[in-house]
Each structure stands twice: as structure tokens, then as C-alpha cells.
């Protein structure tokens, strides 16, 4: 169910494409089995990686029987390691070799690559490779790694800390001591894996004619993949073409550079042939990027009315054995540090955040980046504070949510107009909080434990290069470019730098462009994910594509529109103000005089003389957009039923009241929220990567690492408010990650609410049945 509270679309006629749930242009191919995914491509050689079976150690020998095509680190001399840079926060630059060179640092690290004419044979070959490793004591827990006497994962770090930040506002202590009540929470988010249904895959083919390699791979950032691979190989970027074809979900995992892709390009050049690798699910679970592994200690100082005066925190992020490219491993700990106060007004802040290396798979961004964890922790604090003050959790939030804009946070973030309070009030009303409390009470009398949990949060979205530059990233993502062309046949093509993987971006951008130039979206082709065809851009991550590519699309379309009006004015002998663009033609308003866009396009290329030199030939415009960013916000509500005998949690209901600015395509927007919420529910209840004490992964299949199924996800009720932000030119704010940010906090809050009679606190996610049962047993209050 979806309710649109306010939908004002500015073009007046009510017939704009923007704001309509049109069907996705992407779908016909995908539902017909005609999608084109990386693993669909044939290759002459199949590659299989030989991976470390231990978490820490030194390689003594690598032996393969004669006749096996194998590459090891000794073949790759001269190749640079992957070494993402950050010029800030005591960052220690650490290089990751493409293949482990003498030392292995996590289970699953690539040691060698073998190749054979078939996938099966490559697997057989890999089995025949013998790697002897002298094991050393691995570190899997970040807090253990911080100990004085802990071994070092890499030489040159203090206490295995690779990145560190500290923010303290002046007069913090004054605020702290003036408080009436201190509330404390110590929370942990376990390690998780984004688990896109398509695991990673790469395919590299060498073209002897041009001496170029084309790498087709499952990346969210094709241009940056090209830059990184070429830097490492030391070749000009013109020698590599990177294609991201249909990509089967990414959620951040396909944003960071996979060392495997570098090896594939190297091998294609070396063999002068085509090579392919398809990651299997086990590789994906043990050796693709992980996320979320954080401990947070948080204390809030409140005045007598429950107003938060000061916030003190300590964040420890387990970033694994290497730093990911391009964001670096600072992405989780530093974002947590800057954004921890969330949507609450708090003037005094003192927080330290550290990224700690361990012998585990490297950490990288995953949908929501850091905010699912900090929102969970902060909302635990708010719930505990509400308990301490004896008031409804929503009442405590009401007293603390930001409500004047623009608002500058204690960490220096500037929030544009948002609806932090309004979305919460909307959610309270829609869920029927009062009636729920009555039902809850009645159920408890019958031994049923229902709970409700609210999570309010802000989601920083759509930011360009200034925001990334402020983080000190050497590679500073940001702008997006769109090249919009009406070709001589009248066909419209938008070539974009961004590279979607399931978000329906092609459709949404076509809607934006269609409104400007008066053609049906189905006639607009959006080209992406090919460095030979699309302009340099950054890709799809951080809820940014629609904001940035959408903004650039609008700007380019406005230029085309202006030119079309000028041409029509010549051809129709009317002033541009009297002409409207509609249904593929320019019409003189109030007359039957018109000229089609197709015929104007032809004239723009083939009969330029008719414009008497007053209009430039051709019909192509480009635009680049690099905004400062904006904030979406939402309130999530979960209603749960906890079975105290089994620890099983059933979600009765999930509700979202959200504000992501102008909604371009409501159907697509709702789908993004559904998907994010489902991932958040999985994060809250089920998904956990478990290492044993030797650094081996116990959750290497989908029977052990458990994404939710259709049975665990309830119907999600959505409500929208559309605050038309002035910070983006389309007035859209971006919403790809929000679902995943709020859901874990709401679900765990609801579980704690349900378990109130037992006086327990579940401060760990996922809140598995085992953890819930353990807490209940320890409470000594089980009936």
C-alpha cells in the first residue's frame, strides 16, 4: 500500500511524465531471458582462483603439476598493488597485492590463478595446485586486535589501527556535567555480506587488431574500474574498455575494485586471448567484500525533560585485512563519526572512531554504509532514555528531532529542509500507536509478546565532489555528465556516466528528459556502463544516481529544448514563447502549425543552411552536475511478535513514512524502499558472517548465511511526503539506501519493546533466536 500525501508537479498540465508510475523500459528484455550478464559471455579460457585456506600465515611453496596454466605473484612483478589513499585522519596506506606475495592475510585471499579451456577443467586444475602455508595466529576480532600485545596484520600500524578520527565540540564537558541523566548503550553489529543474487564475474578479451582489452564485469563503477586497472598495470586508459552489462544487484559490494579483475586483464593481454571468471557463491561469501562489523559505545547526557544535551561515543570498525578502493576502509568508521548524531539536535559531541585491521575479508560499503549501524545504536540509546524517563519512545524523539532548517549539526553537516517530525507523526498515526499499546497489553496477559519499534533517521544523499573531497579522498567521486543527442533520424540517446544495476534509472531519466523535449520516454535510449560509449562518471552508489544523473539529464535536456524552440521558431515563423514541444513535435500554440522533432533533427545535421548561420549545426548537448548534496529522511516502524520459547521473531507489520523530495517514478521509488527494508530486516534478524577462532568462515553457503525469503518479509506500508528541495535541480533527494538504514533499528527496537517484561536489552544485530533466547535465559524471568 502506498499513500502519497502531497504530490505537486510543477509543469502545470498534470500530464508530465515525471511523477508517473510508468512501466520500466528495462523490463521486456529481462523477463524474456534476453538480459545480458557477464557470465553469459563465452571465453577461450576459464580462470579459477586458488585461495588461501588459512587466515594468516606465510606461503612456503606453490606447486602445480606440469602442463597447468598458472599465474602467481612472481609472474606479476612490476604490477602495483591496490593502494587507496586518504590524506587525513592518521591514515596508514596499505597495499593489497593482486595475488598474495609471501604472506596471506585472510581466508579466501587469492594466491594463484589457473586457466583452462573449460570451467570444469579449471576447477580440476585448481584442485591440483598445492599451497604450503606456515600458519600464524589470526586476528578476527577488532577489539582483540587493539590489544598492546596483539600481532600486527600489517607492519607499520599502531594497534592495527589504519584510520582514526576524533570530533569534539568546544565546551563539551560543560554540557556533560550539566545533565540530569546519563544513558549508555554498548552495541555490536555483526559482520554481513551484501549478497547480490549475481555474484561477481569478469570477462576480458584482447583484440589483436586494436591491441585493446575489453573487460566486461559486474561493477557499479565502470570508469573508475578502468582507471584503477590501468594504473595498476601501468597502461594508458585508452587501451582498456570496461563494460558493465546487466548487473544482478550490487548493493555496494560491486563498487570496490576486485583484484580478480586486474588479473583477468593482465592475463588477457598475456595470452592475447579471452579469459573469464565467474565467482561461485562460496567465494562470494568468504572473499567478496564484507560489511557492518562494528562495536559502538555511546552515552547520551539528557536534561530533566529528556532533551539530549551531549553525546559521547567510541566506534571500532573491523575493516578486515586490506583497504578497499576507491572509498578506502575509512568509509565506515569516518562516516559513522560524522553522521552519528543523525536527525537529533545535539550541540555537544565527543566521539572517536577507529578502523582496525584484522585477518578477515576486507570491508567495503554496503547499502546504507555505516548508517544502518549508527541508526541502530542511536535509536537504542533513545529507547533506553525513554525507558529511563518513563515516556513513550516517540515522545522522547519528539523532544529531540531537528525541526528548523537549514540546520548545522555538531559535526558540521548542513541539513536542508526535511520532515523529521512530520514523518514520525505520520507513522504514529498510520500505525495506530495508542490502539497498539492496548493490544500489546492484552496480548501479554495471554503470554504473547508483541512489540513496536520506531526508527527515525536522516540519509545524506546526492552529494558531489565537495563532500568527498572533505573526506580527504585522493580519488574524489562526484560529478555526473550526460550527453544528450537527437541523431539525424530523430532518435534520442542519453549517454550517462552513471551505471545502474537494477534501479530502473534508465526509465526515470527518460521521464525527466521526456518532459523537457516533448517525446515519449520509450523513444529515449539511455546508454550506460560502457567506457567507450558513456562519458566519464562515477557510477551508482550512495543514493546518488537519480539526483546527479537526473540533474545532468535535466540540464542537457533544457539545452536541447532551447535549441529545438529556436529551430522551430525559424521554421514555423513564430516566436519561441508561442511554441510548445509535445508528442514529438513543436506546435504553435493555438494553431495547427507544427514541425516534428525528427524533421528538425534532420535539418540540424543535413540542412544547416536554412538556419542562416544563426543556429549551430548538430543537435547534441552535454551537461555536468556536481551538487553539494541533500538529506532524505524517514521514520520506520516495525511491529513484531516474539516467541519467547524459541526466540523466533515474526514481523507482523512494517511501515515507512519517508521524504525523498520529488518522486520521479513512484512505482520505482516504492520498489527501492521495499528492497532496502527487506535487506534491513535480514540484517536485523538473520544475516551473519561467522568466523571461527582460526579465521575460517562457518557461513560459506546460502544455507548458513541467510538472506530473508518471501515468508519473512511482511507487507510494507509506504507513506510519502515530498519536500521539494532547493538543493537539487530536479527537486529529488535520492532514496536507494534509506530502506536498509532504518529497518534494522526499527526491528530491534520492536524486539526490545516486546521483551520489556523480562528487563533484557538486545544490543546486537542480527538478533537471532539464539541471542534472544540467551538474553531471556539470563534474565531469570522466564515464566
Amino acid at each position, binding site marked *: 500500500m502506498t499513500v502519497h500525501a502531497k504530490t505537486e508537479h510543477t509543469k502545470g498540465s498534470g500530464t508530465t511524465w515525471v511523477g508517473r508510475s510508468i*512501466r*520500466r523500459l*528495462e*523490463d*521486456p528484455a*529481462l*523477463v*524474456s*531471458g*534476453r*538480459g545480458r*550478464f557477464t*557470465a*553469459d559471455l*563465452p571465453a577461450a579460457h576459464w580462470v579459477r582462483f586458488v585461495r588461501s585456506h588459512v587466515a594468516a600465515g606465510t606461503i612456503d611453496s606453490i606447486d602445480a603439476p606440469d602442463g597447468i596454466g598458472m599465474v602467481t605473484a612472481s609472474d606479476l612483478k612490476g604490477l602495483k598493488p591496490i593502494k587507496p589513499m586518504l590524506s587525513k585522519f592518521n591514515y596508514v596506506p596499505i597495499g593489497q597485492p593482486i595475488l598474495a606475495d609471501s604472506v596471506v592475510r585472510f581466508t579466501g585471499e587469492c594466491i594463484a590463478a589457473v586457466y583452462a579451456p573449460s*570451467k*570444469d577443467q579449471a576447477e*580440476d586444475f585448481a584442485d591440483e595446485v598445492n599451497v604450503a602455508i606456515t600458519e600464524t595466529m589470526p586476528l578476527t576480532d577488532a577489539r582483540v586486535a587493539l590489544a598492546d600485545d596483539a600481532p600486527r596484520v600489517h607492519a607499520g600500524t599502531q594497534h592495527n589501527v589504519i584510520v582514526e578520527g576524533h570530533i569534539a565540540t568546544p565546551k563539551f564537558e560543560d554540557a556533560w556535567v550539566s545533565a540530569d541523566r546519563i544513558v549508555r548503550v554498548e552495541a555490536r553489529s555483526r559482520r554481513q555480506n551484501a*549478497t*547480490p*543474487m*549475481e*555474484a561477481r564475474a569478469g570477462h576480458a578479451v584482447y583484440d589483436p587488431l586494436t591491441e585493446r582489452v575489453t573487460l566486461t564485469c559486474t561493477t557499479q563503477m565502470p570508469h573508475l574500474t578502468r582507471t584503477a586497472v590501468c594504473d595498476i598495470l601501468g597502461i594508458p586508459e585508452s587501451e582498456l574498455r570496461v563494460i558493465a552489462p*546487466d*548487473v*544482478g*544487484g550490487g*548493493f555496494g559490494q560491486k563498487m570496490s575494485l576486485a583484484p580478480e579483475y586486474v588479473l583477468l586483464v593482465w592475463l588477457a593481454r598475456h595470452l592475447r586471448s579471452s579469459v573469464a571468471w*565467474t565467482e*561461485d*557463491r562460496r567465494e562470494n561469501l568468504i572473499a567478496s567484500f564484507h560489511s557492518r562489523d562494528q562495536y559502538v559505545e555511546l552515552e547520551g547526557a539528557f536534561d530533566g525533560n529528556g532533551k539530549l544535551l551531549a553525546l559521547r561515543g567510541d566506534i571500532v570498525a573491523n575493516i578486515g585485512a586490506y583497504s578497499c578502493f576507491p572509498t578506502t576502509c575509512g568509509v565506515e568508521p569516518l562516516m559513522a563519526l560524522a553522521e552519528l548524531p543523525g536527525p537529533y539536535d545535539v550541540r555537544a559531541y565527543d566521539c572517536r572512531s577507529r578502523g582496525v585491521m584484522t585477518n578477515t575479508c576486507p570491508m567495503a560499503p554496503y547499502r546504507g554504509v555505516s548508517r544502518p549501524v549508527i541508526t541502530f545504536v542511536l535509536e537504542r540509546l533513545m529507547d533506553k532514555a525513554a525507558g529511563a524517563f518513563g515516556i513513550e519512545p516517540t515522545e522522547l524523539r519528539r523532544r529531540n528531532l531537528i525541526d528548523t532548517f537549514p540546520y548545522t549539526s555538531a559535526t558540521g553537516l548542513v541539513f536542508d529542509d526535511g520532515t523529521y517530525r512530520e514523518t514520525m507523526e505520520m507513522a504514529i498515526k498510520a500505525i495506530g500507536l495508542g490502539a497498539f499499546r492496548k493490544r500489546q497489553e492484552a496480548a501479554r496477559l495471554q503470554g504473547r509478546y508483541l512489540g513496536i519499534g520506531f526508527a527515525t533517521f536522516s540519509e545524506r544523499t546526492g552529494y558531489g565532489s565537495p563532500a568527498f573531497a572533505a573526506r580527504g579522498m585522493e580519488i574524489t567521486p562526484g560529478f555526473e555528465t550526460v550527453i544528450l543527442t537527437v541523431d539525424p533520424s530523430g532518435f534520442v540517446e542519453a549517454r550517462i556516466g552513471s551505471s545502474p*544495476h*537494477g*534501479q*530502473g534509472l534508465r526509465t526515470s531519466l527518460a521521464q525527466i528528459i521526456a518532459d523537457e523535449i516533448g517525446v515519449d520516454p520509450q523513444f529515449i535510449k539511455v546508454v550506460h556502463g560502457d567506457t567507450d560509449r558513456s562519458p566519464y562518471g562515477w557510477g551508482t552508489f550512495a543514493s546518488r544516481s537519480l539526483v546527479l544523473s537526473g540533474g545532468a539529464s535535466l540540464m542537457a535536456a533544457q539545452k536541447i529544448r532551447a535549441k529545438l524552440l529556436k529551430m522551430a521558431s525559424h521554421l514555423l515563423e513564430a516566436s519561441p514563447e508561442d511554441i510548445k514541444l509535445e508528442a514529438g513535435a513543436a506546435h504553435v500554440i493555438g494553431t495547427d502549425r507544427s514541425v516534428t522533432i525528427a524533421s528538425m533533427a534532420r535539418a540540424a545535421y543535413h540542412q544547416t543552411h536554412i538556419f542562416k548561420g544563426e543556429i549551430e549545426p548538430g543537435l547534441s548537448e552535454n551537461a555536468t552536475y556536481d551538487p553539494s548534496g541533500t538529506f532524505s529522511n524517514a521514520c520506520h516502524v516495525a511491529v513484531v511478535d516474539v516467541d519467547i520459547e524459541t526466540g523466533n521473531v515474526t514481523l507482523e507489520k512494517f511501515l515507512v513514512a519517508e521524504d525523498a523530495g520529488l518522486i520521479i517514478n513512484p*512505482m*520505482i521509488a*516504492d*520498489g527501492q524502499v*521495499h*528492497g*532496502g*527494508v*527487506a*535487506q534491513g530486516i535480514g540484517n536485523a534478524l538473520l544475516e551473519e558472517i561467522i568466523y571461527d577462532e582460526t579465521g575460517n568462515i562457518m557461513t560459506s*553457503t*546460502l*544455507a548458513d548465511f541467510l*538472506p530473508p*525469503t*518471501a*515468508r519473512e*518479509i511482511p*507487507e*510494507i506500508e509506504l507513506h510519502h511526503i515530498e519536500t521539494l528541495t532547493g538543493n537539487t535541480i530536479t527537486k529529488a533527494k535520492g532514496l536507494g539506501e534509506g*530502506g536498509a538504514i532504518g529497518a534494522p533499528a526499527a526491528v530491534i527496537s520492536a524486539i526490545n519493546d516486546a521483551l520489556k517484561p523480562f528487563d533484557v536489552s538486545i544490543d546486537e544485530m542480527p538478533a537471532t533466536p539464539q541471542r534472544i533466547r540467551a538474553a531471556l535465559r539470563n534474565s531469570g524471568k522466564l515464566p
Partner: protein
Amino acid sequence: MTDKSDITLTINGKAHAIRVEARRTLADAIREECGQTGTHIGCEHGVCGACTVLVNGEPVRSCLMFAQQADGKQIRTVEGLARGDEMHVMQRAFMENHGLQCGFCTPGFLMLAVGVLERELDISDHDLVDVLSSNLCRCTGYQNIIKAVRAAAIEMRQS
């Protein structure tokens, strides 16, 4: 492991005479030997359902079946759903209800849903969710998949 046998896979009515090792899975054979890449592989251990196809009308996980076991049987894959340019009710329902995002799990869900409804058109809404819970989707949160399958079921019952 290199002994190969000659088998015939009949996919969407078309016979493919191929030669495969005993260990070749049906999923790999459909994709690589027969070039029908619409069937996807998400886990190769029988959990995700992305590889679901119909074998003699039954939805099966083609990663858990050897190609030789399907010798001579009727296999239907996503490529065979549409009649020429006319999409299958289920395909239309997925598009109309936004039952897909990245589209990677979609062929498996389409075949699962079609297979179940062809056998049991009167299946209850509740049981339908149970059946759909045998495949994984990471993008949609399932809600729109369920909606799509229910809509298609209604249409299939009417016609």
C-alpha cells in the same frame, strides 16, 4: 571425469544433441552447451532458485540435476515463455507490478510461478507465498513479486 555421453536436451520444443561429462549440471548444459543464458546461476547449491526451469512440467533447480538426468525430457526455460511477440501472462504481470529490479532472479521466479500455477491453479494466496519463499531475491523485498504472481493467477483462472 572426462568420459562424455551423447544426450538430447529438448528445450522449449527444440532438440539439442549435445555431448557432456557425467558431472555436467543441467544448468551449465542449458547455458553453455545449448546457449540459452536466460537461466541464471546464483549459488550452485540449490538454495537461491535462480536456476529454476520446468522439467516435464515440474519446477526443478537445474543446478541440482545432472544434464544426463534430463536426457529426453521436456525442458522449459524463460526463453520459451512468450509466444512470439506476445508475452506470457506471468511476464506481463511482473512488468506491470514491478516484480523485478536487477532481473537476475527473475527467470527463476517466472518459471517457479508458471510451473506451480499450471499444476495447481487454485492454490491459495497463503500457499503461493510458501512456494515463492523457495527462491531468493535480493532486490525487490518480494512484495511486488507476490503481487505479480497473484495478479497472473487471477488472469490465468479467468482465461
